[in-house]
C-alpha cells in the first residue's frame, strides 16, 4: 500500500471515530457553515466539538505548516482527506476568510511574528476575519481608495469607510487597504493592514441588498489607532499584496461556481433537470418543454466545459506550467454561468418563482427567487466582469491601451 493509501485509511478511521454523529450529512451552504470567531453561535454544540477535534489535528487547514498549528499535509493528502470527508458526508469543521484569504496571505507575506500571532488562531477558528478593500464610490477603481492612515509614532491613525465588507458585523478582525501616502501614484501609496474590530472607533452597519439579505456591511473608522506592526509586507507596498490576494479570490470564485458541478452524474438526473420536470412536466422521459430542455442542456454543458477548463488549469499547474492570468476568465465565466443558472431556475419555476415569503410558496421556491437576486451581484463583486475583460484584453491578448 502506498503512503497515500495508508494516510487515506488512517484518515477515514479517524474521521469515523471522531466526527459527531449529529453533524453527518448536514449540508452547509455559504451562509450557515461554521465561520468560527469570538461571536460564533452554535445551534448544534457538536459542531463546536467537531471544530476542536479537527483543529487539534490541524485539519481545519490541512496543508498549512504544523509549526503554526496546521496539518502539514501534502496537497495529495489534503485531497484524500477531503474526498474521505465527502464520502462520509462530513461537513467541513471551519470555513471563512481566515482560511481562504488572510491565512495564505500571511503565510506568503507575513513576518514570523505575524504568523505566530494569527495563524494558530485562524486554524482553531478563534478569530473570524473580514476584508476591507472597497470604499463608497470607488467601485471597480479599487486603487482610488481614500481611507487615510496617518502615522503617529508606532501607530497609524485610521479614518475612512469601507463598503462591501462581508459579514463585518460578525467578524473579529479585518484586513484592510489604507492610504498611507496620498502624494504618489495611486497604487503606490497603499498599505495592507490588519485591524482588530474591537478597537475603539470601529463601527459597522449592515447593507440591505435587493435579495432581502445583508451579507455585507459598511465599516467606519474614526480615529482608530492600529500598531504599525500590523502592516503586512512593507508600508506603501499593499497593492502588491492585494493583487496577489485578488487573483487568489477570483480563482476561488471559479471553484465555487461550477468547477465541480455536473461531474459523474451519469444516469441520475441533475438538480436542474429535476427542477424542470417538477414545473414543466415530463414526456417520454424528457423535460416536456423542449425549448427549456435545450436551455437546461446549454447551462449544464457550459458548466461542464467550465469545470474542465478549471481542471485543465490545475493539471497544467501540476505539470509545472506557469499559470497565466486565467483567474480573470474564471471569474467572468464562473459567475456568469451561475447567474444564467439562477435566471433559468426562476424562469422554469414560472409564477411560483414570484414568492417573497409567506403562503403559497414553499421554502425551495423562496430560495430560487432569493438566490437569483443574490446571484446578480456575482459579476460585480470581486472585480466586475468588465474589469476582468479589460485584463484579458490587455494581459492575455496584448491589445493596446
Amino acid at each position, binding site marked *: 500500500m502506498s503512503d497515500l493509501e495508508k494516510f487515506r485509511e488512517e484518515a477515514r478511521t479517524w474521521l469515523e471515530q471522531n466526527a459527531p454523529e449529529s453533524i453527518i450529512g448536514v449540508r452547509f451552504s455559504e451562509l450557515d457553515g461554521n465561520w468560527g470567531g469570538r461571536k460564533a453561535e452554535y445551534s448544534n454544540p457538536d459542531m463546536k466539538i467537531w471544530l476542536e477535534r479537527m483543529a487539534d489535528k490541524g485539519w481545519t487547514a490541512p496543508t498549512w505548516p504544523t509549526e503554526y498549528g496546521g496539518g502539514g499535509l501534502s496537497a495529495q493528502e489534503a485531497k484524500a482527506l477531503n474526498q474521505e470527508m465527502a464520502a462520509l458526508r462530513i461537513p467541513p469543521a471551519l470555513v471563512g476568510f481566515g482560511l481562504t484569504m488572510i491565512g495564505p496571505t500571511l503565510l506568503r507575506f507575513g513576518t514570523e511574528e505575524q504568523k505566530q500571532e494569527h495563524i494558530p488562531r485562524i486554524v482553531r477558528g478563534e478569530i473570524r476575519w473580514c476584508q476591507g478593500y472597497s470604499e463608497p464610490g470607488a467601485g*471597480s477603481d479599487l486603487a482610488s481608495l481614500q481611507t487615510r492612515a496617518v502615522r503617529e509614532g508606532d501607530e497609524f491613525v485610521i479614518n475612512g469607510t469601507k463598503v462591501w465588507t462581508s459579514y463585518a458585523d460578525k467578524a473579529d478582525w479585518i484586513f484592510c487597504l489604507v492610504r498611507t501616502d496620498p502624494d504618489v501614484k495611486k497604487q503606490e501609496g497603499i498599505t495592507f493592514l490588519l485591524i482588530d474590530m474591537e478597537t475603539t472607533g470601529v463601527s459597522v452597519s449592515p447593507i*440591505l*441588498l435587493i435579495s432581502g439579505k445583508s451579507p455585507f456591511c459598511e465599516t467606519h473608522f474614526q480615529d482608530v489607532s492600529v500598531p504599525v506592526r500590523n502592516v503586512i509586507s512593507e508600508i506603501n507596498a499593499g497593492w502588491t499584496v492585494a493583487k496577489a490576494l485578488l487573483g487568489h479570490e477570483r480563482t476561488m470564485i471559479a471553484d465555487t461556481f461550477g468547477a465541480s458541478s455536473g461531474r459523474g452524474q451519469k444516469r441520475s438526473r441533475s438538480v436542474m433537470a429535476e427542477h424542470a420536470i417538477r414545473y414543466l412536466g415530463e414526456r417520454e422521459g424528457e423535460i416536456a418543454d423542449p425549448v427549456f430542455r435545450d436551455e437546461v442542456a446549454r447551462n449544464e454543458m457550459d458548466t461542464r466545459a467550465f469545470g474542465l477548463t478549471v481542471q485543465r488549469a490545475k493539471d497544467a499547474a501540476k505539470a509545472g506550467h506557469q499559470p497565466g492570468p486565467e483567474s480573470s476568465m474564471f471569474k467572468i465565466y464562473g459567475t456568469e454561468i451561475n447567474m444564467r443558472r439562477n435566471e433559468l431556475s426562476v*424562469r422554469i419555476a*414560472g409564477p411560483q418563482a*414570484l414568492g*417573497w*415569503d409567506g403562503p403559497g410558496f414553499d421554502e425551495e421556491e423562496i430560495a430560487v427567487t432569493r438566490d437569483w437576486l443574490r446571484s446578480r451581484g456575482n459579476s*460585480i463583486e470581486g472585480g466586475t466582469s468588465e474589469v476582468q475583460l479589460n485584463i484579458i484584453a490587455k494581459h492575455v491578448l496584448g491589445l493596446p491601451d
Partner: protein
Amino acid sequence: MEMVLTEDQELIAKTAQDFVNEKSPIARMRALRDEGDPMGYSRALWKEMAELGWVGIALPESVGGAGMGMADLAVVVEALGRSLAPEPFVSCVGLAAAAVVELGTAEQQESWLAPVASGDQAMAWAHLEPETRYNPTAISTEARQDGEGFVLNGRKVQVLDGFGAESFVVVARSHGSSGELDGVSLFWVPADADGVSVERQTLLDSRNAAIVQFDHVKVPHASVLGEAGQSGEALERIIDRGTVVLCAEMLGGMSEAFRLTVDYLKEREQFGTRIGTFQGLKHRAARVFMEIELARSCVMAAVRAVDEGNEEASKLVSLAKARCSDAYILAANEGVQMFGGVGMTDEYDIGLYMKRARASELTLGDANHHRKRWSGLSNY
C-alpha cells in the same frame, strides 16, 4: 393602424406624467412596501385616478367610462409604470373589468363596472391555480350547476390585487377537465359572499396578491358571465386585453430603468473619467435603447390591434409580451451591472425595477410561451 400618438393621447401622457411626478414618485411604492401596507396600493390615489378618468378610460360610457380604447389606457399605464405605481390596472381594469365588458349584459356591466369606473371599488381577476402556469384553460375550480345558479369550489392563487378587492371575476369549469377549452365559465363573486376566504400573499415585487378559496360558494344565475361552459374563447381575448395593459406598464418600467442607467453612466466617475465614456458600456447601452424602441413599437401595435379587433391582434399581443419581457429583463440586468455594487443594494431604485421586470415577465406568459403561441398562430 397609425403608429403615432394622437394629440389627445399626447395630452393624456403629459397629464399622467405630471401626476406621477407629483403624486406617485417611486418613493411611494417603496413606502407602501416598507410599511407592509396590506393593500399594497393607495385606495385614495386610485380614487383620484378614477376621477381623472383613467380607470374608466377604456370602459363604456354607459358605466361612467370614457368609451375610449386600450391605446389611451396604455398611455396612462405607461406613465404609472415608470414609477412602479402599484394601482390595480392590470388585474382590475385589464382583466376583470374587460371580462365584464366582453361577456356581461348591459345590466351586469352597469351594476358591476360603475363602482369600478368611479374608483369606489376594485374587482380582481381570480384565474391562476397552482398548475395553470401560462395555459389559461388549465384550471380545475369546479362550478357545479345548482338549480338556476352554480356552486363554486376551488382555490385560486396569485390573485393579483385580490386582497381587499370588493369582488372577483372567477374563472371556473362547469364541465370538462383541466386544459380543455370546453367547460370554461366565468362568474362574478363578491368578496363577502359566504364561503369566500382571502389570504394575502407576499410577492417579489411587493404587489398585492392573494390566495382566494371558494368553498361551496353559491353564485346566482344573474352572476354568470356569458354562457356557462362556453367562455373559453372569450377568455383568450380577455387575457389579451390584460396582457397589453401589463405590456404598457412594462414599457414604462423599462424606459425609466434605462433612463436611470444612462444618467448614472453620465455622472459616475471611475478611473478618472465618467464611465459613460467606455465604449464597452456605450455599445451595450445603445443595444438596450434599441430593444426598448422595438418593444415600444410592438406595444403600440398590440393596443391598436386590440382596439380595432384586428385579426392579428393575438399575434401582436404575443409579440409585445415576448419583447417586453426580454427587453425589461435586459434593461434591468444591464442597469444593475452598470450601477455596480450599489445596484445590488436595496437603497437604489434600479433593483426595484429588476424585481418588477421579473414579476411581469412571469405573469401572463413569458417570452418562451409567447413565441410558442406566435408559432401556433402562424400555422407552424
